[in-house]
């Protein structure tokens, strides 16, 4: 807690000192510093830094043009997200039906957001620019020669090289992750769904309604609360099982292969790795058909009489085993198939870790008469846990978001008979992410999808924070150095 308050007071201090510098610049700046409030290149122009002056002026003009040609179309409507629906109107001049000048709520939302971000960047540049102009004035008064443009540019290959390196990646991440994410977080507070699809119907802000609906509110007809609890429980159960089965399986398999007495280690490893080298959409779609209701496994099971036996003891009441089409069976099957997919990955990682085992410790333990199980339990396992502990957390989060396995195995073939779940487009086998995907792709229920996305984020963030704190706290850090 203390560090958090410290951090905040630090930020506060730096803002205050920045502001006081700013005030100083306003009060003591000369005419050109003051002029740079309007014309950002003024100070540079006065100090004969013409290229810089030109660049910053062009930047200012670009932002102004952006504001008055682009942003002005969208930002004023941000409060309502548009009011004019798309309609076709008869135009007496062209004698044809034409669309009116309509609004599109999502465009308004998205492009307003882009405008806000552009303005925020502009504001930062603007304030820093004024301060820099004042600095230039001080330098001149102290008789310091202004920096040459060439030297300035050279800095971007030297002390400011990180800016050169990071500019494009950060731009890409902003455009394709940050802006879309913020836009979808906004959508969680609107009523954007199938009944409100722009441009023929518009959507608008509804506050926390969607969250209330997901957590059980929203009237008797809404089953989202029920579906959410069911899906959430299965998501967590799945994540726990999927993470630990593959993790332990991977370590066991790796130590089995790594054993001194095993011949042809490379061959064994390669055999297992081949299964994950086949793209998942091929291998999983194949496995799905392998275990289909009329698939080969069912034929074999029927031939050996397994199906009759299962029917006799009441496990199934169909003429096939519903491996991936009924709850219970499907839940177990996806976890088993995930072991098939995940163990080779974990084995690869564990192999890397096991190669660096503290050999002296094992040797001395063996001299003291420890058997191989004791060594595994007391030396290998703690060491591996220490090294791969953080990765375990990432794996857990990745499994909460594990889209491929569930989607490829059950999409289009699994239908739920639970009416309450079906009403909110969920299935027993759905994880929160696959539910989210069905809601967006098949039902255009963007508002609930966005809320679920936020919930997934909160769960992942909490898991990460709690576990990381556990793992990094205490005096374990230097244990294996």
């Amino acid at each position, binding site marked *: 807690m203390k560090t958090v308050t410290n951090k905040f007071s630090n930020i506060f201090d730096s803002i205050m000192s920045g502001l006081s510098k700013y005030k100083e610049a306003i009060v003591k700046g000369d005419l050109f510093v003051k002029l740079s409030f309007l014309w950002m290149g003024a100070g540079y122009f006065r100090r004969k830094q013409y290229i810089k002056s030109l660049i910053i002026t062009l930047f200012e003009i670009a932002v102004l043009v952006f504001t008055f040609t682009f942003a002005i179309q969208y930002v004023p409507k941000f409060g309502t997200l548009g009011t004019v629906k798309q309609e076709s109107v008869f135009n007496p001049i062209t004698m044809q039906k034409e669309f009116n000048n309509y609004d599109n709520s999502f*465009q308004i939302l998205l492009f307003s957001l882009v405008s806000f971000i552009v303005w925020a960047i502009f504001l930062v540049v603007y304030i820093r620019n004024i301060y820099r102009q004042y600095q230039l004035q001080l330098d001149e008064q102290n008789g310091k020669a202004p920096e040459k443009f060439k030297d300035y540019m050279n800095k971007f290959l030297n002390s400011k090289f990180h800016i050169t*390196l990071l500019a494009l990646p950060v731009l890409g991440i902003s455009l*394709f992750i940050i802006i879309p994410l913020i836009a979808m977080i906004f959508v969680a507070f609107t009523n954007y769904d199938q009944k409100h699809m722009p441009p023929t119907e518009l959507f608008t802000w509804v506050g926390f309604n969607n969250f209330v609906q997901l957590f059980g509110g929203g009237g008797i007809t809404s089953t989202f609360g029920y579906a959410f609890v069911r899906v959430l429980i299965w998501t967590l159960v799945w994540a726990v099982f999927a993470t630990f089965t593959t993790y332990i399986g991977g370590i066991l398999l790796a130590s089995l292969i790594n054993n001194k007495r095993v011949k042809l280690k490379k061959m064994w490893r390669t055999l297992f790795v081949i299964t994950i*080298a*086949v793209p998942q959409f091929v291998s999983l*779609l194949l496995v799905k058909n392998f275990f289909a209701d009329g698939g080969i496994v069912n034929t074999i099971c029927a031939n050996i009489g397994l199906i009759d036996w299962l029917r006799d003891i009441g496990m199934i009441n169909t003429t096939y085993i519903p491996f991936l089409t009924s709850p219970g069976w499907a839940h177990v099957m996806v976890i088993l198939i995930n072991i*098939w997919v995940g163990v080779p990955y974990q084995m*690869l990682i564990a192999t890397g870790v096991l190669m660096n085992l503290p050999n002296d410790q094992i040797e001395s333990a063996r001299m003291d008469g420890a058997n191989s199980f004791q060594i595994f339990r007391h030396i290998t396992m703690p060491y591996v846990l220490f090294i791969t502990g953080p990765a375990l957390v990432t794996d857990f989060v990745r499994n909460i978001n594990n*889209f491929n396995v569930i989607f490829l195995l059950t999409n289009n073939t699994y239908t739920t008979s639970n009416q309450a779940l079906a009403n909110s487009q969920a299935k027993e086998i759905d994880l929160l992410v696959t539910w989210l995907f069905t809601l967006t792709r098949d039902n255009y229920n963007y508002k609930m999808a966005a809320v679920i996305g936020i919930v997934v984020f909160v769960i992942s*963030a909490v898991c990460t924070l709690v576990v990381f704190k556990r793992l990094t706290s205490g005096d374990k850090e230097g244990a294996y150095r």
Partner: protein
Amino acid sequence: MKIKFSDILRHLFLAFLALIWLIPIVWLVATSFSKYTGMNTSTFFPEEWSLINYKNLLFASDSVTQFPSWFKNTFVIACATCVVSTAFVLMVAYATSCMKFKMRKTLMNIGITLNLFPAVLSMIAVYFILKALDLTNNHLGLILIYSATSGLGYLIAKGFMDTVPESLREAAYLDGASEARVFFTIVIPMSKPIIVYTIISSFLVPWMDFVFATLMLNSGISSNWTVAIGLNNMLDRMLLNQYFTQFCAGGVLISIPISILFLIMQKFYVEGITGGAVKG
């Protein structure tokens, strides 16, 4: 070395596990050589063997299967993605590993936070952004999606660069080398394993991705698709009985190059990680 009973047991157990793991793969290969077009549900191995699926897939394109164009599309997208992604990953890794600047920690924390959001959430908004740029149903749009965000996957490369001894870089600075020079002439040549790893792993993304590809290339013109969309479409309930064995043949055809790349990548991955441990 004397052969013990437990050794035989151990090898038998390994062989048993390997068998379980390989059954679906064997089935894939076997079915791809079947003469029958639909899914064979009565026997594990096909009743009649033939090369007809491969022949049809490669030389007799119809409205459903356009395997040669899918392969070409995916290959072009993969090459472009791999160049941009590798550059981005190396740039971010160097900046966060070898340079000390004010926003470093903040940026890295933002990166971790962004990874906690489910990727499918932002999908819709990404679609609208690309639509506004008129890049949907366009391979350039797909390349942008795959490569623009690749900078976030810098952590492994950063971990490797962390192990490049600081003294090497310091010596170069003393000789008057600029930061850019150190990047290009010292750190990059030393990061070979991790560069190979990054190149291959980013090359594989378009071959494996299915979600973003279906979302972006939704025009229904099958010659525009990538391999993943096309093969998945063959398993549509209406088409399954006509194309299942061709799907298997397609699966085998793309799995061969991908497996080879994957095996190479995995070697460099282990080298990248353990090599670092030796140096550090």
